[in-house]
């Protein structure tokens, strides 16, 4: 007899659960042009639950002060809360130690930090491998160091359905490949890449691996130890936290090998004009006063996710994705870009030959927020030879009812052209 499987069936939140979640986000009650807001631009940034806003307010009203510097009570308290936040993030992605969590201003800064530090460790002719579905934030910093120091950038192509071309990957990874930097989830196509497979292959080749998890941490359970990636980066604002926050996770020995990126206060042990010695991890990479309020808010956002349950969030969003995709496919003239069998609730599409800008403007007038254009992934647009797409990207608080509103709006627009 087969044993009972303990896994819960795939199901969306019930109407009551959904209402409870939505009630935590004050902005969702807004009307736009007299219409109820439908916020489908979560890939750009997510809305913030009240508890995140409260935590920031509470910091400024009760224990605002600089961290790591003062002997006084408030400074100690702020330092404790910020270091607790580091532990919250450590547990969230299951890093081995808290000092492997570096606070940055966002995924963009995390990648720039890595590019800048690695630029001093690589040798001329070394290769850096990225993919054709990277966000510009994971392309341009590498191009900049390649141009400056004579490294070479190589690109893993993508297949028509939006999956990575793994056969090409096998050929592109060579003894010269010192770094592999790839996105876990594409912000434009929604594809979830088989990063475990890529990481293992890269490690057999002695290639260090950076994962851009900007579109993954808010949708999937992340375990950096199990993945065994060397670095993992993400932004706080796409995971219900404040803007201006981000994380760079790195394995301790990897971070220790890297030279610091910014100089200033907090990142030093001793400074003299002859020689400066650097502080230990994580402070070696955290020069200057950090974004204390943001970090506090980010930890609170993670508490919100933990409380809701990342598996439940994933189930709900998977249900929305199926529902949405079926409804869209039923409209004649719809082309969806990114049809991987393994994707998150991001749908990029075009309707007939209507320009994405026109669709975006009209959806906006019906209270629906989407993003249109190239989504900071111009190489993907070149790959499919399109000027841009309309992108609907969903989050924990979205509902089937909102998808119905969206589909009706799209039918209306379809008739206008």
């Amino acid at each position: 007899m087969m044993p009972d499987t303990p896994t819960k069936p795939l199901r969306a939140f019930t109407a009551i659960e959904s209402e409870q979640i939505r009630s935590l986000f004050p902005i969702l009650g807004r009307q736009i042009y007299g219409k109820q807001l439908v916020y489908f631009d979560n890939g750009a940034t997510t809305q913030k639950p009240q508890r995140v806003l409260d935590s920031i307010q509470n910091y400024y009203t009760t224990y605002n002060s600089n961290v790591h510097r003062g002997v006084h009570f408030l400074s100690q308290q702020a330092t404790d809360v910020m270091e607790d936040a580091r532990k919250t993030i450590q547990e969230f992605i299951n890093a081995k130690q808290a000092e492997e969590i570096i606070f940055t201003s966002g995924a963009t800064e995390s990648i720039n930090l890595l590019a800048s530090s690695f630029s001093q460790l690589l040798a001329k002719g070394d290769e850096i491998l990225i993919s054709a579905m990277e966000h510009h934030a994971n392309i341009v910093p590498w191009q900049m160091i390649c141009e400056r120091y004579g490294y070479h950038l190589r690109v893993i192509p993508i297949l028509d359905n939006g999956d990575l071309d793994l056969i090409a990957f096998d050929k592109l990874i060579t003894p010269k490949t010192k770094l592999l930097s790839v996105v876990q989830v594409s912000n434009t196509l929604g594809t979830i890449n088989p990063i475990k497979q890529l990481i293992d292959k890269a490690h057999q080749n002695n290639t260090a691996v950076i994962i851009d998890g900007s579109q993954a941490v808010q949708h999937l359970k992340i375990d950096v130890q199990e993945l065994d990636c060397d670095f993992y980066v993400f932004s706080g604002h796409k995971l219900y936290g404040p803007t201006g926050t981000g994380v760079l996770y790195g394995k301790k020995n990897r971070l220790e090998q890297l030279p610091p990126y910014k100089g200033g206060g907090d990142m030093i042990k001793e400074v003299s004009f002859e020689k400066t010695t650097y502080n230990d991890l994580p402070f070696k990479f955290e020069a200057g006063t950090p974004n204390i309020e943001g970090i506090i808010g980010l930890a609170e956002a993670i508490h919100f996710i933990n409380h809701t349950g990342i598996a439940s969030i994933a189930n709900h969003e998977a249900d929305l994705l199926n529902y949405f995709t079926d409804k869209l496919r039923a409209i004649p003239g719809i082309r969806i870009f990114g049809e991987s069998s393994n994707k998150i609730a991001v749908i990029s599409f075009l309707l007939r030959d209507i320009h994405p800008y026109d669709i975006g403007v009209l959806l906006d007038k019906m209270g629906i927020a989407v993003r249109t254009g190239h989504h900071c992934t111009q190489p993907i647009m070149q790959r499919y030879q399109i000027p841009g797409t309309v992108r609907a990207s969903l989050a924990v608080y979205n509902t089937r009812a909102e998808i119905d509103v969206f589909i009706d709006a799209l039918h209306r627009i379809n008739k206008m052209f």
Partner: protein
Amino acid sequence: MSIAEKEKEVIEEFELFNDWMDKYEHIIEQSRQLPLIDELQKTDEYLVRGCQSKVWLNATFKDGCVYFTADSDAVITKGIIALLVRVLSGEKPEVIIESQLSFIDRIGLKEHLTPNRANGLASMVKLMKTFALGFKLKQQA
């Protein structure tokens, strides 16, 4: 008709609609009235750079007046251009240079002309005035 009269006419047309979608239906309708730029001129030389939608603009000078032709790959952008061309075409260079185009604000489309809107319309208005200035200088020379 003077510029002011043409602007008034457009404002009155738009006052007939109180729903946003109806206004946009009308803009889409207007796009069909735009005097189109020659297909051969849809090159970088006549391209107004916007981030999301492309706009091409050209102008000719006849009997002391400026006439515009244009196109865009986005229909709403094209419709708004059609309104601008409808108001400005056939005017003297000085009049175009001095024009405030406040009707765009009055019909609720100001957002489309803000420079950060990334649709190329703000740069297009500038270019229309640059064309007019060029003709004016040539005329004086």
